[in-house]
């Protein structure tokens, strides 16, 4: 536990601009494509033109003979799989034997320039014998379907069957039981920076340096060692500036290994820049998901039971699939108090680009179904949607039925805030025709309490160095991908030492220099790296305090340090400035280096049931939001007029960044809700540009009024929890509920594009006509 009040006093509560913000606004920030590659070779990838097929012939000899080509590689050059979970690495960097989706890499070229590389791709001869291809979960699961992976019958990557509490009894006790199905389209992260990787292999020393867009350099480092059969001490992975991630770059991506293989094969430096289309094909985003949800509810709004079946169309390879399908069930819990939960999840292989982790990983689509159905049942029972949520709140601290820890819980306050701010009570049901209000709640983990590559090591390590110059350098493996994690590290170190933020320099995500870190995923950095940074800063502080005590001839426990001045406690006037204390401390031991760490204890790492580690965390963030929307019944167009959102992030270490994260996540939820979807025509992506992938523009984007709720988590750094993901999942259901409120139409498909709204309106008219006709006939 850390001293919350003193930290509160110290921070300017408006927040701190990013410590690398000036680099970004001046164009000085170097992203992977901006790195010096004047003399580098150009890498290009040959991709499969078919969705499913055996590679019967692959001949690169003509391409190899082309002048200016330094290397051509195929699946023969790497017999090792890569992936996420050690038990499910079933993907080769370049296909071997079989291709399973259109666009899968089958060969790659390094050449002196782009033109030559592209010519060489055209000279690679290959023959693919087509196999039946499956583009929907149903087709892939149908009896007799050809298996994508021989060891996975029914093309099922994983099925999950969990039951907690007595679901049957819950439904028996309910006054109202309803069951509905929902379908959510596949979407993509669409970070604005296209994928890129720069790899350099030095044949004289046998060392490999890779600079790339990875959110988790450590995983890439492991996979490079595996796929290139290299001693991992000879590998260095460096993260330059990264133009967004949102989960796209959590897992190791095929082009990253391919670029390294090309660098070794050509004994040089290779720059690989994927096009936007290839970036879409690389994918790893949120899968198309079908949900069947059944809830039981008492007349007072208490939920008595939840039964949920989820089918995710996962794409051609495992990736994060097992984790995603487990998250979808595990995070049915942890938001409300539900006495019985049954979950059946199916992760299906299909001949499409592999899905993976995307912001709100696994939780978003099931949360959507849940919050929609709760609203509809509230309506049927004549209850206010907000009152129903209030009737099902948890009491922290507690453990959920599936053994997840809930240590702090600010959801009630979040609900209060958005209810007041939106003037819910005054306005609900009183808006002009075509306008409606809807609300929903959501939550997310502050880091997975059990990491995927479980080694037993601490979850985070931060090193601090303080030297003659009076500057403190923080070394962290945590990848700042724009979310402001390096700024967070600087703030907690500065606050703990009570020194100026200007003294801190953060060196991040370079595996040769920074301690290992599990990277930017599952919103773990603030909680885990923040705690490790505080631990390191406290160790540094005790060294400085000891030096000051010797100098001031006082006991260390009597030394106070406030704003870079060390003094003997109240009454005594003798004091020392920071520089003198540093000088005194260096006399004792030279440059000061300390290490801080953070570990989630075993009791935080989830239940003992199979898959029970997924969803486990030290702290959940909580969010409530109200959406005001207009529906044009003539065109089916839905307009988001305004959003009010409150998020419990424990404590905002940097309120400015927290606001930015909340707004960004709500907006990303809005994209999924109103317009974003990926579509394939015979496996060919029909959305693979920023024009066809319809993310909202500034013209589509509403005002998002943001409220920060601080529940002071007992284990978070200064009480903090995550702020980047928790609010995302609430947007889509709040919008769909607002549409229901506006025109009485219950939509069960995402996104709510004009054509889907029109279809539903026409369907409703037809049903009304039939009902009228039947009435007339009787």
């Amino acid at each position, binding site marked *: 536990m850390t001293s919350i009040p003193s930290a509160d006093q110290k921070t300017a509560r408006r*927040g701190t*601009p*990013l410590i*690398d*913000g*000036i*680099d*970004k*606004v*001046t*164009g*000085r*920030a*170097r*992203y992977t*494509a*901006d790195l010096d590659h004047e003399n580098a070779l150009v890498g290009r990838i040959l991709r499969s033109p078919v969705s499913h097929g055996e590679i019967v012939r692959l001949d690169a000899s003509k391409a190899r*003979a*082309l*002048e200016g080509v330094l290397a051509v590689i195929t699946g023969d050059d790497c017999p090792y799989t890569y992936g996420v979970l050690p038990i499910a690495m079933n993907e080769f960097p370049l296909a071997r034997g079989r291709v399973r989706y259109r666009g899968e890499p089958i060969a790659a070229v390094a050449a002196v320039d782009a033109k030559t590389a592209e010519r060489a791709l055209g000279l690679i001869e290959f023959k693919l014998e087509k196999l039946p291809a499956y583009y929907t979960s149903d087709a892939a699961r149908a009896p007799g379907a050809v298996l994508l992976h021989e060891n996975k019958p029914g093309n099922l990557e994983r099925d999950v069957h969990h039951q907690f509490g007595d679901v049957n009894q819950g439904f028996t006790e309910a006054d109202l039981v309803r069951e509905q199905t929902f379908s959510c389209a596949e979407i993509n*992260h*669409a*970070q*604005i*920076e*296209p994928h890129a990787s720069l790899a350099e292999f030095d044949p004289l020393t046998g060392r490999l340096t890779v600079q790339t867009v990875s959110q988790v350099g450590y995983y890439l480092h492991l996979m490079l060692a595996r796929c290139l059969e290299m001693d991992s001490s000879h590998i260095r992975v460096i993260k330059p*500036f*990264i*133009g*967004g*991630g*949102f989960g796209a770059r959590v897992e190791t991506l095929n082009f990253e290994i391919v670029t390294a293989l090309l660098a070794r094969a050509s004994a040089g430096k290779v720059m690989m820049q994927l*096009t*936007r*289309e290839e970036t879409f094909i690389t994918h790893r985003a949120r899968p198309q998901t079908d949900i069947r949800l059944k809830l039981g509810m008492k007349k007072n709004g208490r939920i008595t039971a939840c039964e949920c079946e989820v089918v995710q169309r996962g794409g051609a390879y495992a990736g994060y699939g097992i984790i995603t399908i487990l998250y979808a069930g595990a995070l049915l819990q942890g938001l409300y108090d539900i006495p019985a939960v049954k979950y059946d999840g199916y992760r299906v292989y299909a001949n499409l680009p592999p899905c993976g982790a995307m912001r709100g990983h696994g939780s978003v689509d099931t949360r959507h179904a849940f919050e929609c159905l709760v609203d509809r049942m509230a309506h049927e029972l004549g209850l206010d949607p907000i009152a129903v949520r209030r009737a099902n709140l948890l009491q922290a601290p507690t453990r959920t039925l599936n053994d997840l820890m809930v240590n702090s819980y600010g959801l009630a306050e979040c609900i209060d805030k958005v209810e007041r701010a939106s003037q819910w009570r005054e306005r609900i049901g009183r808006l002009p025709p075509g306008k409606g209000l809807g609300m929903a709640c959501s939550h997310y983990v502050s880091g997975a309490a059990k990491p995927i590559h479980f080694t037993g090591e601490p979850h985070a390590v931060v090193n601090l160095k303080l030297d003659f110059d009076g500057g403190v350098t923080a070394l962290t493996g945590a990848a700042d*991908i*724009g*979310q*402001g994690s390096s700024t967070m590290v600087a703030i907690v170190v500065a606050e703990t030492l009570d020194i100026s933020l200007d003294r801190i320099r953060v060196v991040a995500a370079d595996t040769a220099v920074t301690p290992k870190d599990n990277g930017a995923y599952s919103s773990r950095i603030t909680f885990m790296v923040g705690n490790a940074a505080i631990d390191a800063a406290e160790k540094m502080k005790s060294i400085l305090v000891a030096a000051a005590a010797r100098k001031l001839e006082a006991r260390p426990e009597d030394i106070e340090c406030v704003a870079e001045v060390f003094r003997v406690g109240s009454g005594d006037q003798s004091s020392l400035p920071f520089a003198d204390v540093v000088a005194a401390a260096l006399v004792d031991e030279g440059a000061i280096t300390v290490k801080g760490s953070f570990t989630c204890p075993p009791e935080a790492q989830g239940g003992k049931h199979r898959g029970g580690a997924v969803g486990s965390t030290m702290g959940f963030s909580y969010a409530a939001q109200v959406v005001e929307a207009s529906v044009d019944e003539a065109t089916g167009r839905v307009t988001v007029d305004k959003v009010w959102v409150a998020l419990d992030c424990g404590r905002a270490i940097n309120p*400015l*960044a927290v*606001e*930015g994260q909340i*707004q*960004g996540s*709500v*907006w*990303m939820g*809005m994209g999924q809700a109103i317009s974003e979807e990926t579509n394939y025509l015979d496996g060919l992506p029909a959305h693979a*540009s*920023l*024009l066809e992938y319809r*993310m909202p*523009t*500034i*013209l589509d*984007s509403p*005002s*998002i009024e*943001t409220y920060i709720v601080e529940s002071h988590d007992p284990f978070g750094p200064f009480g903090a929890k995550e702020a980047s993901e928790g609010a995302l999942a609430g947007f889509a259901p709040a919008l769909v509920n607002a549409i229901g409120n506006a025109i009485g139409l219950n939509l069960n498909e995402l996104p709510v594009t004009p054509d889907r709204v029109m279809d539903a309106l026409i369907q409703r008219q037809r049903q009304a006509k039939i009902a009228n006709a039947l009435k007339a006939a009787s």
Partner: protein
Amino acid sequence: MHEPRRRPKKRLLRLRLNGRWREDAVSEGMLLVDYLRDVARLTGTKMGCDGGECGACTVLIDGEAVPSCITLASRCDERSVETIEALAAQGRLSRLQRAFHERLGTQCGFCTPGMIMAAEALLRRNPRPTDDEIRIALSGNLCRCTGYVKIIESVREAVGAGL
């Protein structure tokens, strides 16, 4: 396989880049974004898409915001081109840069140079834009991080600072 290489036709391009006149031999089909990034080594201008979709490459030609990825370098002959690198030239941030930094109009930063250049063009022709005018001026620039909320706030702040 040893066919003689065709030499690409080049012509001399003379333009004023970030306030300084310069001449370079560029191939006729060269895009302005490639000229800026590969020839002039100004990597502040970004490429986020396969052409004309995201606005990350926005620069000013004679003060007008243009996507440099669908503009031929040769079109800039005898014209003035400004990139993000020009704005802090006097050792201080421009009012837009300061506002984007302080109000968190930038998160990952990849769309930021293009966004700031599009806003710069707006403020030069319209020093007191309304929110709607800001939205219209930036509607060709995609951002995936901010939800645009703090981008609008940043431009608004810069407008206030300029009054």
